[in-house]
């Protein structure tokens, strides 16, 4: 007739530090393989769009500014992304990678959720074009 079989554990726990991590004040170091925010390097991109073909969440769009000069802007929807890493695997020129340091992506507004990657002048050009009155009508998100 045995009861109280966890006595050893609970008696020692009184004298040990609790195992709870005090999250915002102490953070564990993330492992190298962590799949965080996507980063894109436009200098190596050829515009093959293989990454977009296999994205299960349609989280990336590639906008061609100038195809011959290989100038692209990537629009990354951080809120749709599932951080699955398939785009990184598909890319043959190593333009994409998932960061292992930026993984605290929560935000109170939806502005930071759409990230543009590319050369600064390209991004500026696109944003100006979208802000003009005769710009193409925005496609509503489905």
């Amino acid at each position, binding site marked *: 007739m045995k009861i109280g079989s966890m006595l050893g554990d*609970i008696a020692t*726990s*009184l004298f040990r530090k*609790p195992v*709870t991590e005090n999250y915002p004040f102490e953070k564990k170091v993330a492992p190298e393989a962590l799949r965080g925010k996507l980063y894109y390097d436009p200098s190596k991109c050829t515009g093959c769009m293989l990454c977009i073909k296999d994205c299960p969440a349609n989280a990336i769009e590639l906008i061609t500014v100038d195809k011959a000069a290989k100038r692209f802007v990537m629009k990354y929807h951080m809120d749709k992304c599932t951080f699955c890493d398939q785009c990184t695997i598909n890319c043959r020129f190593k333009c994409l990678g998932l960061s292992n340091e930026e993984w605290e992506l929560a935000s109170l507004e939806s502005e930071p959720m759409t990230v543009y990657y590319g050369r600064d002048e390209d991004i500026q050009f696109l944003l100006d074009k979208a802000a003009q009155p005769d710009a193409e009508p925005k496609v509503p998100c489905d």
Partner: protein
Amino acid sequence: MSTILPILALLIFPGGLFLMASGLVYEYVDRKLVARYQNRIGPRWFQPLADVVKLLAKEEIIPHGVQPELFTLLPVVGLAGALTAALYVPLFGFESAYAFKGDLIVTLYLLSMMTLCLGLAGSNTLDRFSLIGATRTLTQLFSYEAPFLLALLGPALAAQSWQINEINSFSQAHMPMLVTQVIGFIVSMVGLMGKLELPPFDAPEAETEIVSGALTEYSGRGLALFRIGKNVEMVIALSLVSSFYLGGLAFPFPGMSPVLAGILNVLIFLAKTMGLLLFMAGLQSLFARLRIDQTVGLWWRIGALLALLNLLLVIVLKSLGVGGYWL
């Protein structure tokens, strides 16, 4: 002036508000200890206060099909019963406020009034979970009441009195009955956990089976009053058991200055009740929940027999003339 002081003592200190506040402190210590036993952090010191304030601020929803007067009155009556029982128990290092012959029985029944109110509150609704919870509460009341009373009867027999402050003086003058009546102490501790519906005897309030038992339909003020009542019950029952078994509370300390004696008494009270709470929190974390039929079987078979054995021992030893410091 002489009428204001008793009223203040009754409502503010050491009864009434102060008692309710100390109930919150004891709840905090209990939750923190259980958390530390389970290797986690536990709540901060103001958590029980925040819970009560939040509940008091919320709307009380009276469900369909109950009697509204009974629904709103039962928490008040339960809390009143628990607070009245505090009059006869030596709390916070003070002697009990009133005493008369036989007040042990009255105190115990006032404490049971809380459980009865819980059972009635559960039967009052149409909700299936509350009905099952009420049935379990009343079943548990019938099963632990007898062994608990018998276990508290051991010290009463040894002190030859039914009056709490006389038993208290007896405990102060003799060896702590923790040592001489070990069986009675264990039965009374376990009975205490049954009365307060703490795990492993929390079948009436089993979260994973019947949501919250008898309290399922309560919200807002009614739930806050029931919670405060349970905490007050815990303080009173702890002081009762420690004054009987752990060598008494409210020592007179003849010849010492009253202030010093007062402070010493408060420290002794805190030490004894908190020590008992440490032991009780450990018992809470060690066991799985017992089913209600297992609880009843355990109590009526083992609990009552052990308590009777304890009584027998006391009677035999007393009649044999063992006395002096020991008994």
